[in-house]
């Protein structure tokens, strides 16, 4: 009961703050935090849960350099989301490139968040971005991006000790997708028993777990281009 009251009070407090500030202010809060990161390298573990795709977790390294260079290096075949985890932040960097509209509030994992819709002013890959911003810490806890190239993707950010730099410990990408299916003739799948459900729509998730962040070490551009 006490916990519920605390949540309601913090929600009201957040709502009063929301009324006082514009969506752009919240975005600036987020950007100020992330702007402290010029580049980073980290270890990454990727877990997959995609309908019709059986892929064991993969470990590797991840590199980022401002404003928008991002690369995941792993051994072997790996499926990655089309958008980098900092895709939305790259767009938000230029405040004249988009229009931000506040569209209410919601509690995400017990944290009161304000919802900001972002509409690019020019024609970009992003059509619409919906951001759930924690106004007290200046962090995007959740975002829903609708893009031309990859449809709609939901991104959940989970922060750890490096929340001060807006660097998450864990990011979960959720994508609406149909179960992967190959025509029998193409798969040369003669005389096999199919026990798994057929093409049913579902959601696929890719979870990126970050660890051992090394920040602002002046990463070379070569990291993002070499084979």
């Amino acid at each position, binding site marked *: 009961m006490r916990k519920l009251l605390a949540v309601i009070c913090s929600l009201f407090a957040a709502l009063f703050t929301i009324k006082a500030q514009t969506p752009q202010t919240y975005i600036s809060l987020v950007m100020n935090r992330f702007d402290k990161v010029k580049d980073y390298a980290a270890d990454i573990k990727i877990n997959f849960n*995609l309908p*019709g*795709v*059986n*892929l*064991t977790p993969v470990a590797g390294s991840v590199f980022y350099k401002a404003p928008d260079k991002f690369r*995941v290096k*792993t*051994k*072997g*075949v*790996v*499926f*990655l*989301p*089309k958008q980098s985890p900092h895709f939305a932040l790259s767009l938000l960097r230029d405040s004249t490139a988009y229009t931000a509209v506040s569209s209410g509030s919601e509690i995400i994992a017990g944290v009161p968040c304000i919802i900001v819709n972002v509409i690019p002013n020019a024609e970009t890959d992003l059509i619409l971005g919906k951001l759930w911003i924690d106004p007290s810490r200046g962090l995007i806890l959740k975002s829903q991006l609708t893009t031309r190239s*990859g*449809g709609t*993707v939901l991104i959940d950010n989970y922060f750890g000790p490096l929340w001060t730099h807006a660097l998450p410990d864990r990011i979960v990408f959720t*994508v609406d*997708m*149909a*179960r*992967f*299916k*190959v*025509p*029998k003739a*193409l*798969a*040369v*799948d*003669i*005389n*096999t*028993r*199919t026990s*798994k459900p*057929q093409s049913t729509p579902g959601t*696929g998730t*890719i979870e990126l777990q970050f660890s051992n962040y090394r920040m602002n070490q002046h990463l070379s551009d070569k990291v993002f281009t070499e084979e």
Partner: protein
Amino acid sequence: MLNLIGIELYKILKKPRTYIGFAAIAIIVLVVELSFYADGKQYLDFVLQSLRQHFVIQGEILNGSLMCFVILQMLIVQMPLLVALVAGDLISGEASTGTVRMLLSKPYTRSQIFFAKYVAGSVYTFALILWLGALALGIGIALFGTGDLLVLKSDELVVIKAEDVWWRFSAALLMAFVSLSVVTSFSLMLSCFSDNSITPIVATMSVIIIFTIIGALEIPMLEKFKSLLFTTHMVIWRNFFDNPLPMRQIVSSVVILLGHIVLFLIIAHRHFVRKDILN
């Protein structure tokens, strides 16, 4: 006994039909590998287009492991014919040429002669599988390099790590050998009942085609019957590319396949040792 097996192997080696299988495999492997070398990327793009809508697939998908898997899938359907060509001729061929009487006059028991023929037929089957695997993987690696294996199934896509690929291929080829040994024993059994080599070869292929068609029909009434057909279990080699390994299914299929081999050999042996040689 070893001497007898050696003689039987020599007979197999002396027949031109023995090399048809090896030549056919070499041609098909070359054609498939070169076709993929030219257009493989477009083919994979087409197969994976639904996934590429949402994801970036990083890493080299088109590699020697994938080529070997694709070729195994394609050829495993045709391999029984190549096996039947030789195994179906082992006893009936001698009967048609009239040498079986001379063979049985040697100081060996009929059982020894029968099992020497079966072992020789199995050695040929093993050599054929080994040739297929070595050629598919060897040319594949030479043209496309190594890497993780993308197993394309009609209802699932499995990615096998490069370090796991070798033992899985070895196990799958061994399993394919067990499967084709059923065909060897079946052809040998029919060969015991015939005085010409065409009948057992054609009969073997007819049975395999009928069983394969029944196996492909998705009719509930046939479901229980399907699990008794050896052709249903002949594709079990593919299960070595599942993650995790369906061990129960693999073991049950191996037991059923071995059961078929023993059954066919008992019938064949029983008939051969009691056969009245008239020509």
